[in-house]
């Protein structure tokens, strides 16, 4: 069976790859393109570790077929920081000690970025519900939610 040829944009850069019809975008990102910042925790869309954006929409990359990405814009954790430094969300995660083992962190950073684009001033409850699909087993979420709310304030230009 012939492979499917796909051209897509990842973090602003054009990529070409070949994939199988049933192959997930997560598998292509990690195994074919070496973008291992996106993590695999369950493969069933229940843990959020593989969160990416697809045309700006937050999605679990384990439940996106690689073939679907043709002509789309993908955003992964590798594209969150810039040449000028860390994104405020990343900086606040560090300052608030919002990670322990760190394996859920890339998914949380990508999801938080999607949240704050939609809702720059979330309440604690809104942040908790929006991020309910990002499992963290280490922190009890306390410091994560504080980091998210502080990042939001910082991005709005308010000092927390």
């Amino acid at each position: 069976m012939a492979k499917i040829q796909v051209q897509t944009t990842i973090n602003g850069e054009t990529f070409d790859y070949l994939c199988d019809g049933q192959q997930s975008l997560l598998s292509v990102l990690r195994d074919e393109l070496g973008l291992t910042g996106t993590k695999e925790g369950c493969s069933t869309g229940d843990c959020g570790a593989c969160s990416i954006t697809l045309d700006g929409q937050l999605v679990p990359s384990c439940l996106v077929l690689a073939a679907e990405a043709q002509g789309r814009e993908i955003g992964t954790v590798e594209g969150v920081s810039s040449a000028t430094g860390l994104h405020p969300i990343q900086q606040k995660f560090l300052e608030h000690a919002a990670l322990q083992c760190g394996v859920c962190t890339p998914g949380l950073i990508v999801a938080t970025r999607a949240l704050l684009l939609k809702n720059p001033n979330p309440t604690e409850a809104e942040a908790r519900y929006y991020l309910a699909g990002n499992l963290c087993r280490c922190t009890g979420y306390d410091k994560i939610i504080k980091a998210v709310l502080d990042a939001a304030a910082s991005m709005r230009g308010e000092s927390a």
Partner: protein
Amino acid sequence: MSNQNGSGSDRKFKVVGTRPIRHDGLDKVTGRANYGADLALPGMLQGAILRSPHAHARIKKLDVSKALAMPGVKAIVTSADFPEIGSGGMAAGESHIDPKDLQANIMARGKVLYHGHAVAAVAASTIEQAREACKMITVDYEVLKPVMTLAQALAKDAPILHEGRKAVGVPPLPEGDTNIMMRLANAKGDVDAAFKGADVVVEGWYEASMAHQGYIEPHATVVTTRENGQAEIWCSTQGPFAVKSMVAVTLQMDPNLIRVTPSEIGGGFGGKTTIYLEPVAVLLSRKARRPVKMVMSREEVFRATGPTSGTRIWAKLGVKKDGSFVAADTRMEFEAGGFAGSPMGAASMTLYAAYNIPNFRFEGLDIVVNRPKVAAYRAPGAPNAAYALETAIDELAQKLAIDPIDLRLKNAVKEGDVASYGPKYDRIGFIECLQAAKNHPQYKAPLGKNQGRGVGAGFWFNVGLQSSATVSINDDGSAVVRTGNPDIGGSRASMAITVAEELGIPVERVRPLVGDTDTVGYCDLTGGSRVTYATGMAVIEASKNVIEHLRARAATIWGCEVDAVEWRDGQAVGTNGASNNKPLSLADIAKQMAHTGGPIIASASVNPPAAGPGFGVHLCDIEVDPETGRSTVLRYLVVQDAGKAVHPSYVEGQFQGGAAQGIGWALWEEYLFDKDGKMENPGFLDYRMPVASDLPMIDTVVVEVPNPLHPYGVRGVGETPIVPPLATVGNAVSRAIGVRMHQLPMTPPRVLDAIETKKG
């Protein structure tokens, strides 16, 4: 969050107790950090495991010939490829492992003992090919009746998991074939007489479900083998040296041939202190002469890696009217899974450890069932034991109409008391924790309708064990510290803080590294709440040894005796006769290393026999929907004695994370099996771990009663936080609904049943 200082160490710290950004953080927020599944090697094959579809069966025939002929298949391994080994004991952190069982858990030999038990493994060019080939392996099973519950395992006519194996431990032991693998028992005083003299006695059965550690990163390994027999193992583990010795024993290899490099670890909580994939990958790699990668699916993690024991514990506790405990009696039944080795021993150590009980007795049974073999999970066994005892204490408080914290204060252990498990307590902080909880605003916050407040306490002994560390100085005056403990939650930062404190340099000038088994000295595993305590002590010693070098170098530069040089605030300072010299900073000395004797490097190793126990007190406020039985956690507080918090943010993080796991275990998490013994919920959808919207902020109070065994007063903090929540949450629910709950998890149907039973 707040800190409460006990009296004690008056050392003024400069770096210890601050909250620097962790050194490995940048790579973890940008996706650069490499976890178990992130490594790829040229020519690497993918491995997959065929797992048993039965909970209990004999393997009559296993035929891999069709699978071997499948496209892309390079190697197949079954139990026939593993050397036959005898029984015996090997230490594995907090528990002991029988190598024969360890091997048989990794690859079933003769019999499968749980649904998901590995029976064969395939390496192929792609993972799809490996999985397809697994389907072509034919296994002829003689299906046996599964033993799924403790009651089934103890029944007179119970099917026997391990025929011919005798129970060990304290007599009386069962005669003949049994599913009881071990019996422990101990007693003090005249328990029966003491109960007769008690004013109030409560007793009951308390049940907790089997629960999984739930780390987000599945087990993963990449193995390369060489023609000379060497094996290079990359894996996600809490203990690279433990992996080395366990692989050596299961494959009967010379350990010298094995090098283990720990990846970043995506959570472990005890579950990554043992091995599953590594020896299989070694055998596949040897046969295929290629590197082999193996990564578990989430379903495999649930079905085949270590949960912790489900338990049934009968407890009886008697008090005088004034609240003083007079007697306790307990029978603990622990599910071990398919092989012997539940944490019942640790449970029996911790059971009565927090209180002075003049007369006590316990019996503990390690019982095999056709469920996955349990592995360590954060303070293994202690949460189950505390669930029974701390619930009984809450019942007594209600019956006596005594404040539940006051009742605990009346009986709490303090310095000089003899612990129920033997040793005499040195300085400990249980009373300080109870008082801090009592004085916390949450304890006075008004409760509304259908709301209840639970109190619970917990104890964990913590461990010391062996650690080594090496500190080296760069020529710019910065430092590198190397240890062998995978950083599971911020320990690199603690190690760097320790070096910075000792050498008197900024923490950013210290680079903390985690080495592989060939590049660092031996370290026991990351577990037992031991890393900041024991490995931290090795780092202190190594830093002190570096300071000796620095003083000698300053003496050389100044042409004076070493005795005339002191190391003070990060500088060599001259005294008696050398005091005219301008102090030399670390950077000044480092710059001249080449001319004063060469590179500066020092190592140290420690093996502390004890660690200084940790105590915690939790408060939980809960609201129960009386029409549905659904619980909502409103407020939660963790108070714990940390001795001295090296990095307070990560101490609080341990408190909060442990509490969250305990809340999940109390309210939602459980292993569900169908009648054939097949796990029904092997995924995050139905194995319900807490999500962000399930929890409130988890408030913390870090009590600091210095541990006399550690130079800074540090106590391990990782495990104690999961000990109190089961009872704390249970007591909150019970008080909210006015009915005593005896079974976890307290799912909505169970709670609604209790409410309706009360209504009659």
